[in-house]
């Protein structure tokens, strides 16, 4: 009996190291590779990619002054957001939790510019996230899951593997166990998030990661969490970790 305790510790430590240290059980494949050639061409077309319309909206908002004449551009020159989106979601010391890009934008707007927070899926917030994300296009996804972010990452991992909804499926049920298989007539992708916010052809508009999670939750007949909830931010962190090895593609086109 006495021997079992240290043995148990070793087993648990090995298990944790395997999960955290070994990396993704799946070599990451971008959603781009699951598109038809026409949709791939549309994503690659910097003019015709509808997501670029939102990038332009974001660029305009970036320079839009508040009542005191201050804007994002007052401190952050045009083009200075390179590499930022690749790091998100990340731990924020001031707020004491992991936050995503939308929450960072809203926090900055409130504290520095005195502006009201923007709602999820509003044209303005989609525009700003698309604009910032676009400046990381081509850069590798670079989120950190250690230190203060570890707890959030663990919760996100649990969410990904937990079954939910009337259909009793977890994210992994499709996006890990059946990648490449058909779900009726569609081919299942890995559900990566390296292209968000995406122009989703199904929605005919831009959508955020959280909207995607809510859609997926509804698809298995589970009640979605609110957009911006910590559950979804944790999941977003886990998802971005799964995308390590992929490049940011914002604004991506997805079916």
């Amino acid at each position, binding site marked *: 009996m006495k021997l079992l305790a240290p043995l148990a510790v070793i087993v648990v430590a090995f298990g944790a190291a395997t999960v955290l240290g070994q990396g993704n059980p799946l070599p990451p494949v971008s959603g781009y590779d699951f598109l038809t050639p*026409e949709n791939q061409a549309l994503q690659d077309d910097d003019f015709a990619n509808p997501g670029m319309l939102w990038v332009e909206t974001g660029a305009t908002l970036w320079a839009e002054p508040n009542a005191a004449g201050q804007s994002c551009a007052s401190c952050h020159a045009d083009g200075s957001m390179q590499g930022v989106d690749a790091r998100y979601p990340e731990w924020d010391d001031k707020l004491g939790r992991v936050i995503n890009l939308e929450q960072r934008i809203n926090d900055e707007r409130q504290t520095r510019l005195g502006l009201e927070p923007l709602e999820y899926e509003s044209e303005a917030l989609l525009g700003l996230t698309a604009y910032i994300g676009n400046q990381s296009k081509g850069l590798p996804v670079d989120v950190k899951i250690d230190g203060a972010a570890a707890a959030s990452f663990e919760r996100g991992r649990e969410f990904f593997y937990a079954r939910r909804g009337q259909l009793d499926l977890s994210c992994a049920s499709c996006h890990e166990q059946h990648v490449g298989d058909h779900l*009726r007539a569609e081919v299942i992708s890995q559900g990566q998030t390296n292209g968000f916010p995406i122009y989703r052809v*199904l929605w*005919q508009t831009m959508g955020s990661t959280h909207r995607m999670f809510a859609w997926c939750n*509804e698809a298995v007949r589970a009640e979605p969490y609110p957009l911006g909830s910590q559950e979804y931010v944790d999941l977003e962190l886990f998802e971005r970790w799964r995308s390590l090895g992929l490049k940011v593609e914002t604004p991506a086109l997805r*079916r």
Partner: protein
Amino acid sequence: MTDRIHIPEISRRGVLAGFGAGLLLTAIPIPVRADQPLVDAAIKDLFGDVPRSDGNITVTLPPLAQTGNNVPIKVVVDSPMDGPQRPKRAVIIATLNPRALVGEMIWGPGAAKAEFSTNMRLSGTQDVLTIAELADGTLWQVQNRIMVTVGACDTLSIRY
């Protein structure tokens, strides 16, 4: 040419309704699909009874569209841009969409060639009929078959 399997409308609707959007779709009426009489009426409205024939009109559509919301279409009418055979306009007709006529494209005097590209919506797997009218009234038509995985009309009532 691909053989297409005829799936009766009710069961195809049921199959598509089951994926994702199902809960709300069953409560809301699906738009009526255009069928031959409606397509004929649309064509008669535009061109009267002028006979249509094969001609130098080429339409490029992908063989498969993952989502019917955004299907790229390219129309090329190969005919001299001056003289009686100058292409005047082209119409795109989606034979099974709720509204058959998708768009009417008119080449003005400044057009260099009778060619255009755009994106259209398709409610499901169907034939797309493109008719070009030349200056002297001749009508050329071409029909393309396209498979659509998720139709545009099946995405109408999703909450997220």
